[in-house]
């Protein structure tokens, strides 16, 4: 049991927090057919974070989140500009901007030498859940429970903060977002500040992506934005039910995926463990495929 608290608890907690934040914003993105935009955004935040850390020399939560947000707004502004002024087709604009941003982020990682410190490019992509260890929960430790809470990796607090922010934004504007997703023209005709609401949704999405990428990786962020919401979408016809269901599915896939990473290889006699972010993402995809297949039959 002690091993669970030291080795497994924090990765599970971090993956759960970021999966919840991503899944919640995913509901609105799925309904507006913007899953690809979420994919783009999750990559586009990378250079913002890297540049912010390189310039300030700090890697605190505020610097990381501010950098991610700035890049997200810059990228969506650029996409909108290409579509409007350059008359580029929206899918193309999205593809061009996010690959350019992501590539630029990787270049900055290399130039600044950040890639040799905490920002391994593999971790950016596939996450590094296994690196999240809760040192003071070891059995011989003398630290009290609350004191040892302070020893949790910084990323856990970052993810918890982001989850609270995302949930607050979605709750504050829940009826406005629902209308905006269903009928944006009527929303504007009714005098809703559509631009501000879009910015709020972009903020929530960028926060979820940014928080995710340092520990759980871009891949898991994308999987968690798209899969749980898309699965829930197949199972219910009420938006509130869909939101709740997507959260439950996100948590279930995190636990199932993590278990698969830890125990899966042992079934085949291997002592290695799989990359947990990878198995969680795969589990989320499987859940979606299985639900779709069941629905197609039934």
């Amino acid at each position, binding site marked *: 049991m002690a091993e669970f608290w030291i080795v497994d608890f924090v990765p599970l907690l971090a993956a759960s927090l970021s999966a919840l934040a991503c899944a919640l914003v995913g509901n609105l993105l799925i*309904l507006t057919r913007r899953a690809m935009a979420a994919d783009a955004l999750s990559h586009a935040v990378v250079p913002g974070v890297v540049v912010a850390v390189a310039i300030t020399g700090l890697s605190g939560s505020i610097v990381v989140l501010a950098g991610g947000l700035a890049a997200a707004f810059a990228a969506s502004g650029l996409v909108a500009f290409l579509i409007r002024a350059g008359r580029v087709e929206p899918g193309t604009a999205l593809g061009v901007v996010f690959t350019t941003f992501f590539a630029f982020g990787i270049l900055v990682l290399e130039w600044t030498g950040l890639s040799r410190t905490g920002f391994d490019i593999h971790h950016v992509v596939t996450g590094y859940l296994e690196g999240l260890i809760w040192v003071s929960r070891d059995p011989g430790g003398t630290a009290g429970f609350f004191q040892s809470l302070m020893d949790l990796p910084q990323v856990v607090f970052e993810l918890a903060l982001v989850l609270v922010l995302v949930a607050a934004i979605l*709750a*504050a*504007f*829940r*009826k*406005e977002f*629902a*209308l905006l*997703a*269903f*009928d944006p*023209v*009527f*929303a*504007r*005709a*009714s*005098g*809703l500040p559509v631009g501000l609401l879009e910015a709020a949704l972009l903020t929530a999405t960028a926060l979820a992506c940014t928080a995710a990428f340092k520990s759980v990786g871009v891949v898991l962020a994308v999987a968690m934005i798209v899969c749980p919401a898309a699965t829930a*979408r197949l199972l*219910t*016809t*009420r*938006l509130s*039910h*869909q939101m709740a269901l997507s959260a439950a599915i996100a948590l279930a896939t995190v636990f199932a995926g993590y278990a698969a990473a830890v125990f899966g290889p042992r079934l085949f006699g291997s002592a290695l463990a799989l990359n947990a972010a990878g198995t969680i993402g795969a589990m989320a995809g499987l859940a979606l495929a299985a639900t779709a297949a069941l629905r197609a039959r039934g």
Partner: protein
Amino acid sequence: MDRLAITPPEALAPAIGHLAVVGLSVAYRGVPVLSDVTWSAPASGLTAIVGPNGAGKSTLIKAILGLVPSTGRVTIGGRSVDAMRDATAYVPQRATVDWDFPATALDVVLQGMVREPGWFRGYGRARRERALALLDRVGLADLASRQIGQMSGGQQQRVFLARGLARNAAILFLDEPLAGVDAASERIILDVFDTLDRDGRLVVCVHHDLGTVSERFADVLVLNKTVIAAGPVALAFTPQNLARAYGVPLTV
């Protein structure tokens, strides 16, 4: 107007003044869709906008409501449409939204009140009851909790009408509300129009069926990229004006 007050569906139309369009032009990528539309709407009653396909009928409604970029001036009682937003309601074409969206008929009607409760708040019981009353008025009280994708086209159109009514506006703009609806839905929609007329509201309605203009509408705007004729049906809805708009002789 008190934003937080919950107005009953049959609240009287506030006197908000006159809708005037002056020199309104819309172009899409350099191609003119509407040019120099000048139109003085009647104070109240039922007005049809007619014209051939591509005449810019839907675009005119959207431009009046500020939903597409345009040049020119639109005023209601001398003030800009943005300032008079709550005097207007828009009922878009049914095909503009995805009816598979996870929402019930009641959810959609409530959207018409989206700005009333304020941020953070839900719609609340009183607004739900008001939305239910509006659904009842369009004959759909039994289907309040039905998913909107599981309704017929006519029923969906009536849900959209009820959502427009929920805005309790003095001026309602409707885009082809009678296109492709069944006879029962058409009767109910026209019945609601009559009530709106009696309430002293202005109903501006894009209408495709020239054969029914005279019996259903008091005023008409004949449009083909610009105003061909406008005024009471008896004066403006003439074979000459229609021939000019449609480019071919028509009898009505």
